[in-house]
């Protein structure tokens, strides 16, 4: 009887044939190990840089921290004044206020654009998406120059409202893009089911899609905030510095954390640099609070879903 002998050659694997690395070294393990090691190394560089930034800000900023640094303003403080006096209270309030003003316009508008892009049947959607994405690449300094040219056109004085206006075009595309992603992740069946039950489009949106996309919308808001909270160049161009607290957006200078940092780095003295680090730490904490809040909200929602 003829014996069937198994072909001793390994089975051909068309996908491995293309892997030069694997065939070159003769081992598949080697290629895998290289890939994973390289990925870990490159990622380590990223996290190394990130941790270096965080550690520098925390360690150097801690030197400036004290209660009065958080609530006092910058009146009668020169670049060489001892760190026992003066602080960033005015700049914290100014930053929050300007960002809030910008958000009040950018969030509804961005959300409306996202809705238009996902819910309407308009033929212009691709064009709108392109223009929104193109706006996302708007350099912050250009936004500042744009508002500056408005100021010069109106013959107006620089003031807080113009700072907020300069932040708005930077925030809008981020909110619109992330909100669109969030709305897109809601299964189309949900919307079709709502429409099928006779709901008009707006109720389908507010009662079905929006709740389902809530965490994504919050992410959109937070990424938008993160995009503008530390923007420096537009504010340098459009608002005047102020050493005191001023929350009137139509009159006078407004202090913000980024412009405060910018000013004190430029001064260049040891104590002014420490103040800049301190203000950076405050800005970082601000961003951190926003972030953790957002993540906790998202986590809460997921937990509730799991319980059900």
């Amino acid at each position, binding site marked *: 009887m003829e014996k069937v002998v198994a072909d001793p050659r390994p089975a051909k694997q068309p996908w491995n044939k293309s892997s030069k690395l694997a065939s070159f070294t003769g081992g598949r393990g080697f290629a895998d190990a290289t890939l994973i090691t390289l990925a870990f190394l*490159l990622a380590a560089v990223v996290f190394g840089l990130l941790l270096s*930034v965080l550690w520098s800000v925390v360690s150097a900023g801690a030197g400036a921290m004290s209660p009065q640094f958080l609530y006092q303003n910058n009146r009668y403080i020169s670049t060489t004044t001892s760190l026992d006096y003066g602080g960033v209270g005015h700049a914290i309030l100014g930053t929050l206020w300007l960002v809030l003003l910008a958000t009040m316009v950018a969030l509804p508008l961005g959300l409306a654009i996202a809705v238009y892009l996902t819910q309407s049947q308009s033929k212009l959607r691709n064009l709108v998406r392109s223009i929104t994405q*193109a706006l996302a*690449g708007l350099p*912050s300094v250009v936004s500042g120059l744009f508002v500056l040219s408005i100021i010069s056109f109106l013959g107006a004085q620089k003031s807080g409202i113009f700072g907020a206006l300069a932040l708005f075009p930077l925030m809008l595309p981020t909110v619109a893009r992330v909100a669109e992603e969030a709305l897109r992740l809601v299964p189309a069946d949900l919307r079709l089911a709502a429409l099928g039950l006779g709901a008009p489009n707006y109720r389908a949106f507010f009662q079905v899609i929006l709740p389902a996309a809530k965490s994504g919308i919050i992410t959109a808001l937070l990424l938008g905030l993160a995009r503008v909270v530390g923007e420096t*160049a537009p504010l340098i161009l459009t608002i005047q510095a102020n050493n005191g607290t001023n929350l009137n957006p139509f009159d006078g200078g407004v202090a913000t954390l980024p412009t405060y940092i910018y000013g004190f780095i430029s001064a260049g003295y040891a104590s002014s640099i420490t103040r800049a680090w301190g203000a950076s730490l405050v800005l970082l904490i601000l961003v951190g609070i926003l972030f953790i809040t957002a993540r906790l909200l998202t986590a809460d929602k997921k937990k509730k879903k799991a319980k059900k």
Partner: protein
Amino acid sequence: MPKEAVRRKLGTGVLNRGDRLFFGITSAASYFAFILVALILVFLIAQAFPALKDQGLAFVYGSTWEVTPEKAVMQIGPMLYGSVLIALLGVLLATPMAIATAYLIVFILPKSPAKLATNLIDLLAALPSVIIGLWGVLVFTPIAQGWADFLHKNLGWIPLFATDKGTTSLNSSPFIAGWIVAVMIVPIITSVTREIFSQFDRELINGALALGATRWTVFRRVILPTASGGITGGVLLGLGRAIGETVAIYYVLQLSMKINFFQILEPRGGAIASWILSRFGEATEAEFHGLMAAGLVIFITTLVINLIANIIVNRAQPWRK
């Protein structure tokens, strides 16, 4: 009925009043995006016009910037070139790091470290550029100077790493500015890439692995080709951000009107947005218009990059239509 046809049909029905209002508001908001871009263009052109008329086309490619009360010569060639050089360096450094990070997060790491890594990357995206600039000039520059010395010492015969005679300290160079820009755009590219990776059909990958493909092969032949459109989109987003980056580069780069073509370790370079910032404080009337013209150039450059980016991205992701 095919899905497309169903969708089209749903849109053609008679809308009730609530829906008409609903879609009216969202359309108006969307058209506002056009108006905003048009407004930016109109205002910038109006303010830039006196300078552009005065300087002619040499404004873009010339390399002199001398403003005196009698005469103003304003040209931004080296700054424009420098912006592009630094942005390319940044993208070149950031893209491998971003793809590696996204790959680890989505495919390799267990769930909770992956989540931590994602959060950290998002945090990096949120770091304000002024903080990166402060860190860049005080903490990173001394470190990167060491790297630059090493490159120059060992690879100095390559024109890319050569320096002028007499240059002793290799700080404030496009090399360092490129790293700073890379730090700022890594999160952008990572988050886009991660998004694309996480939408992968796991069965496709598991199938390839089960058939005997190595992880390397899966990465090279399955993951990268499928994701390349999205990655390109992320990279171009990063490029746009890099070209417009102002404050961080302002601190770490020695701005010079003497053009630096490719000597990335030489402590002089250009960045158009930083140039605007550096001249803005003491600008005269004529210079004010010149800086507006520089802003117009950045705006048009980034607008073109972004429009091209979108064409590529939209073509690469047909499911988005």
